[in-house]
């Protein structure tokens, strides 16, 4: 009987804990503002790469400096979770939404939900897929052109090598998730250059990464073992440089520009790691998205829509970007956001 009483007490305590533990986050969570005039929901899919970390920081810090309440929600790479988070934001009566979607398809659905509820929405850097019928401010880099610029420089280096050896080069591209229009544009930019130089390049090898470092490592390693002659590599995102290095180094292919065995290497994003590797001479060219410009223009356009009570702003704002190469790095180094962060010690944090 005594044992029963003790267990009953334990059960009661556990029950109280269950209710309280569900409520505990209230005390650790950010304080609800409500007093501020404008509240913006910032829904991002994850912070896996330097680009997203820096973009997240640029947006949240700028908005808070402007005394704007920011509700941050992290979808953790789950489209349904992000959808539920956004409709919860709408229920909270936010004035606008900045969205970094999981992919172009889920962006269409979420933008439609915002349109239905009269909440202006801006999509940052990862646009809705091409068949999007809904209205949004879309800020996006011209991935195809920026990639093309970077790969054109790489092709010039390849031409020099071809003239020396007389051997065609074997190109390889690490392709992103093709559900993301950014990945599609980058792949197209790469092929524009390769197909324009049929005498210079063999047929390219494609390695699927799905924007995932582990997947990229497994597939890239397998591709390099099967094709050790690869000597021209383009990565669709700079965050894969450590992955590339981990495969090339044991094969004695991680060699700086100008030394024998150098693999012509390029990418796109313009992050701090890419900057460091360019300065060290391992990377030939990198396409640069102007992150700070994109963050600023996203916020400006969304705040203007909120002020004008324009619930369905519909505008595509391109980021022209540029290619930082070993040929222009001395003049344009500090135009690349990753070099600014690198200079500030971002990689040491």
């Amino acid at each position: 009987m005594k044992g029963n009483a003790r267990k009953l007490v334990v059960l009661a305590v556990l029950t109280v804990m269950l209710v309280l533990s569900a409520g505990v986050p209230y005390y650790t969570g950010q304080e609800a503002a409500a007093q501020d005039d404008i509240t913006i929901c910032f829904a991002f899919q994850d912070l896996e790469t330097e680009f997203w970390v820096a973009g997240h920081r640029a947006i949240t810090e700028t908005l808070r400096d402007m005394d704007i309440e920011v509700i941050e929600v992290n979808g953790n790479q789950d489209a349904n979770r992000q959808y539920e988070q956004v409709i919860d934001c709408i229920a909270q009566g936010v004035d606008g939404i900045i969205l970094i979607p999981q992919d172009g398809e889920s962006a269409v659905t979420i933008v439609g939900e915002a349109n239905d509820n009269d909440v202006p929405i801006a999509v940052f850097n990862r646009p809705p897929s091409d068949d999007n019928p809904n209205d949004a401010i879309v800020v996006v880099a011209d991935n195809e052109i920026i990639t093309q610029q970077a790969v054109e420089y790489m092709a010039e280096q390849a031409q020099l090598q071809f003239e020396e050896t007389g051997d065609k080069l074997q190109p390889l591209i690490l392709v992103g998730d093709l559900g993301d229009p950014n990945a599609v544009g980058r792949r197209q930019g790469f092929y524009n250059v390769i197909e324009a130089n049929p005498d210079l390049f063999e047929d390219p090898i494609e390695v699927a990464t799905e924007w995932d470092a582990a997947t990229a490592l497994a597939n890239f390693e397998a591709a390099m073992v099967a094709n050790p002659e690869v000597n021209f590599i383009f990565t669709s995102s700079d965050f894969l440089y450590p992955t590339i290095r981990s495969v090339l180094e044991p094969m004695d292919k991680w060699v700086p520009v100008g030394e024998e065995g150098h693999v012509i290497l390029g990418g796109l994003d313009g992050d701090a790691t890419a900057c460091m590797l360019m300065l060290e001479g391992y990377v030939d060219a990198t396409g640069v998205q102007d992150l700070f410009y994109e963050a600023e223009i996203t916020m400006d356009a969304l705040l203007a829509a909120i002020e004008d009570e324009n619930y369905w702003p519909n505008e595509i704002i391109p980021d022209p970007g540029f290619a930082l190469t070993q040929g222009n790095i001395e003049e344009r180094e500090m135009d690349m956001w990753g070099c600014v962060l690198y200079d500030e010690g971002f990689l040491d944090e």
Partner: protein
Amino acid sequence: MATTTNEREFPITTAQLARWYDIVRESPPVVFGIKWLKRFLFSEYFILYLTIIYFLIMTERIQVLDTPLNLTNVLANAWPLLAIAIGQTFVLLTAGIDLSQTSVMAITSVVGAALMTTNVDPLKFQNSILWGNIVTEEGGLLAGHQYAVELAILAMLGIGLFIGFLNGMAIARFRMPPFMVTLVSMTFFSALAIYLTQSNNIRGLPEDFIKLGEGDIISIYVGEQVRQISRRDVLSFVTYPLLIAAGLGIVAHVVLSRTVFGRHVYAVGTNARAAEVSGVPTKRTIILVYMFSGFCAAVAGIIYSGRLQAGRPTLGENLLLDVVGATVIGGTSLFGGKGKVLWTFFGVLFFVLLSNTLNLLKLSAFEIDIVKGSIILLAALIDVTRTRLLARES
């Protein structure tokens, strides 16, 4: 009388303490309190009471929690989760577990979408083995067909049943551990979904299908009479997901509580050996239970695909914690033999309310998962304690 050191220091003997304890324990308010506590803790509506208490507490702190729009969101999130959790309830009742449910959602989502899509990007799909036979530039195999949606849904449900059959066969006939079998299934079918689509989502689903995930049948407006009601003030009331999940729930409840098969499910979960000796067709019961679980996962796949307006190879990738969590919180025992569909409904309600409040509290995804994990652990502890106490009481 010999006294201990403590008794010398404090002028109260252990005998006196024991007498006072008996007096207090037998006093009417305490007797009433214990009775009330027992009734509360042992009630089959225990988790519903908890949900209500939690809701009332949090309403005080989150102003928008009880607004009609937010309540609509909570219910909209509950229906697909309920559909899949009903299947998990059946499996847990047999003392098993089905980890493959999320992969069933993914594979049914992409196959159904591939069959009925009207919009395919060749660039994305030309490397897929579906290209040229099931998917072409004109769309899916059933694109434009009069019964495209119905046939695609039948295919999705059929795949769910088939995967459940494979799981059930491996567990019942070959006596393999459910955890291992369904873990392998999960890995295999998740990878297959990604392989079939080369990791691409499939859009261009027919409107009739999208409706199943988010369409309203009856909408309501709460507020003053105005000339024009804005879209954001129109709230979903009766929706297709509600009808699907509620229909599935009612059927599942009747099957469990009113049929011989339902009794077999409980018997297998309580003591499989005893059930077998008593003439219960345990193997057939287990196979049917896993088939039903696959069926429910396919139904959830239909609702989630419609809701997200795409066939997604990664659909439900992070949902397993929610499914098992909601079912266990509802009171269904991980050891089998105890549970009800109604309890699962309460568990789902608590779980989606919890997720909703965590979102409204602006916590990060990681903090949300930590809280959810802790609560599932506590719920499991409560389940163990309640089960033991109930056994002693009876």
